[in-house]
């Protein structure tokens, strides 16, 4: 392929494409397919390996019994982890849903002001904070027993609220986006009737955006469900279910943390339990993901009908 002006007769293929072009076309096409397989195979292998190595431990009782034996966990199931994860998610949502939705409403209502611009920027920046940093922040805000902070020790409350911190910017962003997706004409129609911004928000914007906001909350839950690093700093682990969520006995179990601890032990039996737990966690995450997809798919269809 020379860029020079051709002096000689241009060489044209007699018919069809040159062999070179055909091969090149074929090679790029196959490469993309192979790359896709290379990308997806390990991911599917993770699920398969988790099932294959964990199947000995898998049964209904695995998710309904507490761990037992010595070292703890060698017998029994992961009920403590499931219960703990649920507690953490609830705590995280209790903090992040009101705050995140509130901030999202603010960004929607006063989005063009300078303060809101700064808020949006910082909220987006918070999305990029690595989870170890959240762990450190959670430790100093909630767990530490010296200096400022709540002095709650390694506890479910500290970990739940730390996860809540992680969720806040996600919920904020999705809430604002869902509200912005409400057609402007709809909002203007109400404003032109003399509705206040509050009335527009209450009567029109929120009802129209509610599925989007719900999806956002679930997305946030999905994001913090498998978080392990922040728990290392704020909760660690509990083989049982605590009576209190604060103080020295306030730690909760957690599925992700449980996998971490089990896999860290040089014990084949615990590794089996770890893989079974990994499968349980993966299935929960994938089901939640699918739920979110159905929800947003359903609401899109609904919106199109309206």
């Amino acid at each position, binding site marked *: 392929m020379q860029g020079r002006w051709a002096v000689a007769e241009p060489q044209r293929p007699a018919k069809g*494409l040159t062999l070179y072009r055909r091969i090149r076309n074929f090679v790029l*096409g196959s490469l*993309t397919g192979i*790359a896709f397989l290379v990308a997806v195979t390990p991911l599917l292998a993770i699920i398969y390996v988790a099932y294959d190595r964990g199947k000995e431990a898998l049964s209904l009782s695995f998710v309904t019994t507490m761990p037992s034996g010595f070292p703890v966990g060698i017998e029994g199931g992961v009920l403590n982890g499931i219960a703990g994860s649920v507690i953490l998610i609830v705590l995280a949502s209790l903090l992040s849903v009101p705050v995140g939705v509130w901030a999202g409403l603010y*960004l929607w209502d006063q989005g063009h002001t300078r303060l809101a611009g700064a808020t949006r920027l910082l909220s987006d920046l918070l999305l*990029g*904070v690595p989870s170890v940093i959240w762990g450190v922040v959670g430790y100093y805000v909630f767990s530490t027993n010296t200096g400022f902070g709540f002095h709650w020790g390694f506890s479910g409350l500290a970990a739940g609220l730390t996860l809540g911190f992680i969720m806040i910017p996600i919920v904020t962003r999705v809430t604002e986006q869902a509200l912005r997706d409400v057609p402007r004409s709809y909002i203007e129609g109400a404003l032109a009737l003399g509705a206040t911004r509050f009335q527009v928000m209450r009567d029109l914007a929120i009802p129209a955006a509610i599925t989007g906001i719900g999806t956002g909350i679930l997305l946030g839950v999905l994001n913090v469900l498998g978080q*392990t690093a922040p728990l290392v*700093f704020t909760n660690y682990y509990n083989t049982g279910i605590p009576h209190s969520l604060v103080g020295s006995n306030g730690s909760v179990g957690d599925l992700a943390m449980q996998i*971490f601890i089990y896999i860290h032990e040089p014990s084949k039996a615990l590794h089996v339990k770890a893989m079974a737990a990994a499968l349980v966690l993966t299935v929960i995450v994938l089901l939640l993901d699918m739920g979110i997809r159905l929800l947003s798919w359903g609401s899109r269809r609904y919106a199109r009908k309206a």
Partner: protein
Amino acid sequence: MAANDHEHGDSLLVGGEHRPPAVAPLSFLVPDPKDDTSLEGPESVARETEETPLKSLRRSTHAQVLRSERLFHLSLRLGGLFILLLFATVLGVSVVEAWPSIEKFGWSFLWSSTWNPHRHIFGAWTYLVGTFWVTGIALLFAIPIAILSALFLSDYAPKWLVGGVSTLMEMLAGIPSIVFGAFGIIFVVPLMRDHVEPYLANTLGRRFDFFAGDAMGYGILSAGLVVGIMVIPLVATVTRDSLVMVPRETVEAAYALGSTKAEMVYFVKLPAVVPGIIGSVILGFGRALGETMAVLLLIGNQASVPASIQDVGYTISSLLANTFTYAVIDPLFSAAEIELGLILLVISLVVNTVGRELLLKLMGGRLAGSVGGG
């Protein structure tokens, strides 16, 4: 100025039952801006409007509406304030708690490789190098595969397959990183130890020390590969999102010139989405950088600067997750660790902002957030 008499029958007016209004002179319709008297002019004559229950109610609620609107806007601002507060907390805690170390070691913290808690000397170099090795291996592995996969999803996959496999890819991106770590220990480490690393040592390793080693299975290679697997779906999905934004006209123009599909993709489509690809790679970089648990399980956790791809090492995030809880006993030790975290935080924030901006510019709007780490 009186209105002129007009002839009816103008084509535009045919069929219109036009009722001529009371005559209004032009000066009435176009008030003289300097003439203030027109404000109290004749127009106030027809001002009385009939009183209805609604209108009297309206007046009584005036003050109430004003008050509640102000209150509403103010209270919303509090929600935004919380975000500012949260960000200030993140930055404040990191800086304040890292301060003893920042004060003591200054800039040399960055390039000193001594890390000795007993002698109270701390330097970041070992962990910075380890972090960038793992991230680098991950990206070297992930980027080509992710971009080609994105092309497969956007252009090559058969129509009936696209929806399904795209969703699959997106869903797999959500598998928690601890699961990747466990998979690494159970599957990747033995594979590396028994097959890949001995082979590497016996082939490339004979010539380059960089590939030599004693095949432990743990180390920057295993950690990097697993992080790479983890990053692929993110990079692929974001790249695909920008690939499908290329206008159809552009694609058709390339075909109309007689391009093969490969030529269209290579010469037209890929150049068109370079910012998108860069953006997605940067996001992937940010995700790999903060990755914690999988790395912690696989890298071997040893504070040495890796010389070979088979060596063990330590990254910033795995160090913090592994040792922070006993580092807090010693203020300078914990401060040094947090200073490492601060470095990671700053790099992550810059990387994520740049990547996001690039993509936002390209896609004009929506981008779901993803928290790196786990």
